[in-house]
């Protein structure tokens, strides 16, 4: 599936290194289901990790070598029947009409599982049980203009349904906004349908101006 907005390389490195928060990692995994380009890049980042692991200096490695006892104990505990067969390899991109499997698994179903809470006219939010504090789903009414805002920390926004446009471009299902901290943007939801986004943050959004500042508590993060 052809997407226009991808993960930043720095996010892929963090995902490969295992340093993203659970919430951010989930949104990354969801985007990866749509996007073969980012999946390939992730393999490169993991390959780097593997090469680095294998290239650690002998002195550090010798100090870390497990004991012969540990090895024999593990060998003795091996069970021939203890084998996990390959999961069906899914290499097809999902298309924009489908929800990512990682999200469906977490929700235990589709978006109808969500309990929406109104934050402001045209803006609803839902938390996902077990999804963590930094994870939410936003539903924004057609034609809604969001306040201009920047971000103090990292934020990932994945479009699930509908679309919006901002200074960077138009975001459709599967597209991810992986914005730098200094990027300010003012998303406007396209007119036809509401836009539903999966959002992971690790720091509060910061809005500019009086009215947006009044809105900030509603975003609740």
């Amino acid at each position, binding site marked *: 599936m052809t997407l226009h907005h991808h993960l930043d390389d720095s996010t892929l490195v963090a995902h490969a290194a295992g340093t993203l928060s659970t919430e951010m990692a989930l949104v990354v995994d969801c985007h990866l289901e749509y996007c073969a380009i980012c999946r390939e890049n992730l393999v490169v980042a993991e390959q780097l990790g593997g090469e680095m692991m294998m290239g650690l200096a002998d002195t550090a*490695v010798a100090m870390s070598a497990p004991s012969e006892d540990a090895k024999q104990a593990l060998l003795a505990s091996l069970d021939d029947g203890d084998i996990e067969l390959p999961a069906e390899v899914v290499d097809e991109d999902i298309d924009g009409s489908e929800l990512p499997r990682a999200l469906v698994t977490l929700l235990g179903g589709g978006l109808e599982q969500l309990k929406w809470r109104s934050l402001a006219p045209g803006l609803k939010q839902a938390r996902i049980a077990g999804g963590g504090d930094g994870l939410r789903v936003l539903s924004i009414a057609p034609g809604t203009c969001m306040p201009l805002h920047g971000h103090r920390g990292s934020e990932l926004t994945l479009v699930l349904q509908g679309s919006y446009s901002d200074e960077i471009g138009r975001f459709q299902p599967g597209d991810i906004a992986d914005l730098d*901290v200094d990027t300010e943007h003012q998303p406007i939801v396209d007119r036809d349908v509401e836009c539903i986004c999966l959002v992971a943050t690790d720091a509060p959004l910061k809005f500019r101006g009086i009215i947006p500042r009044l809105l900030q508590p509603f975003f609740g993060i």
Partner: protein
Amino acid sequence: MEPSTEADGTRWVRVIQRIAADRDREAFAELYDHFTPRVSAYLRRQGAQGTAGDDLVQEVMLAVWRKAAQFDATRAAPSTWLFRIARNQLIDSLRKQTARGGDQAHQSVDDEETASALTTEQVETGDDNKILRLMTELPKLQNEVIYASYFLGQSHGEIADSLAIPLGSVKSNLRLAFRKLRASLGVEL
């Protein structure tokens, strides 16, 4: 240790396939001897020390035994596959600790490991690990952010704090370093 040449990679592909198809314990012991010290060194750098660290290493190698049939040589090199398993087990163990309310998730690593960048001394001499050699040739900050990500397990925010640089610099330096390292793997930009 032998260099991780392509021929070496092919050898380990066959070893993993023997473990998967024949449940071959000799093959597993061979793989264990070669990879476990590296897996262990990696996990220790991430703060998995002491008995908990030893247990985690054994869990990783047990997962290798269990998952051998899932290895697909067309999709990943043996070292990439092992790295993924080690990383996933590490994340699982950190999450379990967090869920138990423990604050041991990220123990500080010991003195020997507190270097903030990869130095030439830490890279094997005489081996052809191109990636590590390239890392030592990167500008200092790029080396540091890559090192902090992969070897210290620090998030972008933690790297920004520990190096006292803006979050945006962490990301831009990671991007630059990743592009150079990716190019060295022969991947098109």
